[in-house]
């Protein structure tokens, strides 16, 4: 690397870091990690050597998503991106024990002494365990780290009472309660305040949350303190919790989630000023007021007299310090404690002055116990300015209400709170669009992207669609709740978001699907005549062919006019290769094949001189077949019991599997049996794009099911179902849709997922992108396919039943019909003559295509590389 010398006079030293070189970060939680990431990305001149000293043995992980570990997510998925080891020295499991500010050195547990020029304390908080009798007994745990999660799991597995008590009904308490519930324990939550989540919610919102949590089987005790933990006379282990109202809850597992305390011991011992209620006192730049070489970020920092227990302000502090370390002037913008989350499946949001502490503030409340929604807006005394709000149940208004805090209300508060009749989740409240927001309004709270930044990305940088906006600004790449707002910004800037398929149809694929379903039209000619214009093209013809095939699976895709609609591969039920020959991929369900059939594949390949290769989908590809050879090849294959593998179609391909419990010593379920069953059930299903699946027989996941459109992973209790994964250009892990399903529920859920996708996805949109564009995302999908929220499950089930009943092997359909066989000839006037324009060479004992090297082809290649 060449060091770039800063121009003369630009390197004015900044106090405390004039000769700075060595940065030591104490703590590798989310905020410490963010600080290192921010500094590393901006410090292009490599001014800082970074050392991170971490207490935990794991590198930084997403603590906010801790509870997902109980929903089948592996802890590795929580890991935050690794730092560049060449840039950052990360020492795990070696906590700092003392700061020597005079010597500018920190001491670690392993005895190391690490010198610093600047020191960042990112030590976070520890759970507060109230000093009650028995609170330290075995069976009393806390909920903060992955180690805690392991302890809770182990305790739950060994629980004799099958009951658990959580002390604390705030955010963490409810997360812990959900975890215990998922572990199968009868769970109680004890909260001193009159209602749950007293920090974020008011009484009305808290009451509704309490009721909904209760409906999930968690018993809530509010307005009640904890007197102590009863312990076993002999073992000393917890046996129950006694409440201040005299109630005794028998339980051998107690989780304390009664708040956190900043871990400021190092700072205290080193003589740094700490706040009244703890935390390292810092100024607006997050710098210690005692020692300019020391900074504090995250939950250990005391800003304006208080510490903040949310990750968003922690990130803002990390960004501030990273900027300052490089000589910038950034200041901590102040705490935004607005939050929107789901607790036990209940949406909760709180923003601005939620408790109406502003003098004269008015509260407008819409409390609908029937619909189980509660909304409150806090407005100024003249009812013109929004000050804050609380939403429970339906939080879809949050993305647009929150940026309005401090601005004039664009509509009557009661209108803004009214339930959304149209547009679904994320629709602007009360019909107020992004247009009603001030330019400075933050549209994406995950990445702090404002309306004017987004507008500029559209007008100045030419972002013409949502994906472009996402990659340009990062907006919408977090929780995704602002995606509808991004669409509105594009519309407001006059960018046409056309969903028209092509010049022949003004409709989207999903609209055409509905038109076909409603009218019963079965031909492209009629569809284009009645609902489009012209004669079609390479975009709409295959799309309509796929819609027709999805709708009436009983009709062969090469019947009559349909043959001419099909794209390159479907046209001859084989995959066209670069030289105009074809590949043949017979179905091998679940990757399971008998030796006799394996031999048939070898014999066919040998007799027709085909190139053979094992595919990634656990089957065998035979390449280099001429068009006129396909029927003879398939006659041999179908005689041996093979069927089309649909490798050529936008259809279900393979269901990959591991050997599962039949053979594997780790397998907990019969993954091959299920994979074969699913592949046979869905074979021939035509979709907007190809569909790949996998079944793993245990959590080791050897079938790579999470990289599939639908993936199934065995659990001790049944099957976890993941959806929306793919490899390819933009790899994406499938997301957990449902856990521990029994066989019949699993199959029914996949049926509905597939049929909903087929009905509503865009042309060539795989399930991952479809899920991303689905308003309401995974939650909406879950509601539709598991709870029948749209009342369409009977239709979806019937559609799949029709598909299963109608399935016939496509290749057999060709072999039995002379009209279709006529398509498989080289020349209409010389049917058996091999095309002289196709020839082969031999490489590694197998045939490979010979390039004819057309001058035009060469010229085109040259043009495209210029």
């Amino acid at each position, binding site marked *: 690397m060449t060091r770039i010398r800063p121009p003369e006079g630009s390197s004015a030293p900044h106090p405390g870091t004039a000769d700075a070189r060595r940065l030591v970060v104490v703590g590798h939680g989310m905020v410490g990690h963010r600080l290192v990431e921010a500094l590393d990305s901006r410090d292009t001149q490599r001014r800082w050597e970074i050392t991170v000293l971490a207490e935990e043995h794991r590198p930084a992980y997403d603590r906010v998503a801790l509870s997902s570990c109980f929903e089948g997510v592996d802890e590795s998925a929580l890991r935050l991106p690794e730092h560049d080891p060449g840039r950052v020295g990360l020492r795990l499991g070696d906590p700092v024990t003392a700061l020597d500010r005079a010597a500018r050195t920190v001491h670690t547990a392993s005895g190391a002494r690490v010198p610093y020029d600047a020191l960042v304390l990112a030590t976070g908080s520890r759970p507060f365990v109230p000093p009650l009798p028995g609170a330290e007994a075995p069976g009393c745990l806390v909920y903060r780290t992955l180690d805690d999660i392991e302890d809770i799991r182990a305790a739950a597995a060994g629980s004799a009472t099958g009951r658990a008590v959580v002390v604390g009904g705030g955010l963490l308490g409810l997360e812990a309660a959900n975890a215990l519930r998922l572990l199968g324990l009868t769970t109680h939550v004890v909260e001193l305040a009159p209602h749950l989540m007293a920090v974020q919610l008011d009484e009305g919102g808290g009451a509704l949350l309490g009721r909904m949590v209760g409906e999930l089987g968690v018993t809530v005790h509010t307005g009640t303190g904890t007197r102590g933990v009863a312990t076993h006379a002999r073992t000393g282990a917890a046996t129950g919790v006694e409440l201040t109202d005299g109630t005794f809850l028998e339980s051998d597992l107690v989780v304390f989630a009664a708040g956190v305390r900043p871990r400021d011991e190092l700072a205290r011992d080193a003589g740094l000023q700490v706040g009244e209620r703890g935390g390292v006192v810092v100024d607006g730049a997050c710098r210690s007021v005692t020692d300019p070489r020391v900074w504090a970020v995250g939950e250990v920092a005391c800003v304006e007299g208080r510490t903040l227990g949310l990750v968003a302000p922690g990130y803002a502090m990390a960004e501030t310090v990273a900027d300052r370390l490089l000589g910038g002037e950034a200041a901590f913008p102040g705490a935004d404690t607005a939050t929107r989350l789901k607790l036990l499946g209940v949406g909760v949001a709180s923003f601005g002055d939620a408790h109406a502490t502003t003098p004269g503030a008015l509260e407008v409340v819409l409390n609908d116990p029937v619909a189980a929604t509660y909304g409150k807006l806090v407005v100024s005394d003249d009812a013109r300015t929004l000050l804050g709000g609380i939403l429970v149940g339906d939080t879809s208004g949050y993305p647009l209400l929150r940026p309005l805090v401090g601005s004039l209300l664009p509509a009557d508060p009661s209108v803004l709170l009214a339930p959304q009749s149209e547009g679904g989740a994320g629709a602007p409240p009360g019909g107020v669009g992004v247009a009603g927001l001030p330019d400075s309004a933050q549209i994406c709270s995950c990445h702090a992207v404002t309306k004017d930044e987004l507008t500029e990305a559209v007008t100045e940088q030419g972002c013409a669609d949502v994906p472009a906006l996402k990659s340009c600004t990062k907006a919408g790449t977090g929780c995704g709740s602002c995606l509808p707002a991004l669409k509105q910004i594009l519309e407001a800037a006059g960018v046409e978001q056309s969903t028209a398929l092509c*010049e*022949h149809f003004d409709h989207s694929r999903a609209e055409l699907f509905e038109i076909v379903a409603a009218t019963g039209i079965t031909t492209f*000619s009629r569809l284009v005549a009645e609902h489009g214009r*012209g*004669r*079609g*093209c*390479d975009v*709409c*013809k*295959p799309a309509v062919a796929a819609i027709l095939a999805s709708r009436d699976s009983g009709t062969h895709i090469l019947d009559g*006019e349909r*043959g*001419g*609609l099909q*794209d*390159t591969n479907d*046209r*001859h039920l084989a995959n*066209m290769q*670069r*030289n*105009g020959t074809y590949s043949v991929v017979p179905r091998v369900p679940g990757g399971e094949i008998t030796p006799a059939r394996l031999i048939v594949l070898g014999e066919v390949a040998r007799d027709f001189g085909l190139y053979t290769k094992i595919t990634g989908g656990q089957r065998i590809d035979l390449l280099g077949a001429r068009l006129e050879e396909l029927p003879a090849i398939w006659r041999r294959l179908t005689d041996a019991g093979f069927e089309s593998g649909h490798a050529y179609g936008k259809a279900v391909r393979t269901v990959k599997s591991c050997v599962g419990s039949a053979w594997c010593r780790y397998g907990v379920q019969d993954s091959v049996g299920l994979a074969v069953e699913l592949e046979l059930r869905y074979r021939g299903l035509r979709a907007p794009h190809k569909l790949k699946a996998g079944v793993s027989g245990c959590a080791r996941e050897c079938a790579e099911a999470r990289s599939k459109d639908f993936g199934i992973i065995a659990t001790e209790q049944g099957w976890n179902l993941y959806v929306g994964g793919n490899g390819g250009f933009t790899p994406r892990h499938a997301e957990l849709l449902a856990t521990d399903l029994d066989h019949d529920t699993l199959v029914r859920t996949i049926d509905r997922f597939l049929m909903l996708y087929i009905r509503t996805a865009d042309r060539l949109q795989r399930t991952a992108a479809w899920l991303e564009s689905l308003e309401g995302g995974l939650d909406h999908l879950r509601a539709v396919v598991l709870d029948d929220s749209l009342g369409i499950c009977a239709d979806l089930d019937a559609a799949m039943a029709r598909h299963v009943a109608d399935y016939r092997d496509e290749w057999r359909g060709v072999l039995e019909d002379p009209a279709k066989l*006529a398509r498989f000839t*080289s*020349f*209409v*006037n*010389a049917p058996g*003559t091999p*095309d*002289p*324009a*196709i020839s082969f060479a031999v490489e590694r004992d197998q045939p490979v295509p010979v*390039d*004819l*090297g*057309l*001058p*035009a*082809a060469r*010229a*085109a290649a040259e*043009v495209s590389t210029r």
Partner: protein
Amino acid sequence: MTGAAPVWTALCPLDALPADQGRAALLPDGTAVALFRLHGGELHALGNLDPFSGAPVICHGIVGDRAGVPVVTGPLGKQTFELATGRCLEDDTVRLPVHDVRLTGGVIEVSARRNTVETLVG
């Protein structure tokens, strides 16, 4: 075009071609043409070699229209060609050879090549 009378080659009966789909036919000189019969009865014959890949696959393209002009889109690189002129819409320097077509007693006949394109291999 020369002044000599064109030579016509009979290829196949009209009903060997399904509407709006292509089929390949072999010419006496060993080259192939892609024959297309449109739904309105219009006939077209173009060279079957895809100039972008060198593969003999134009006959397997999807037939349609662009703003009312009949076209075929090749199956490999998805370049689109006007059926009447052979002109490639994506690259004006590329043209497929085009042959005159006529129907004689229900039999499709084509003439020798009508446009000559130097960039193509015979």
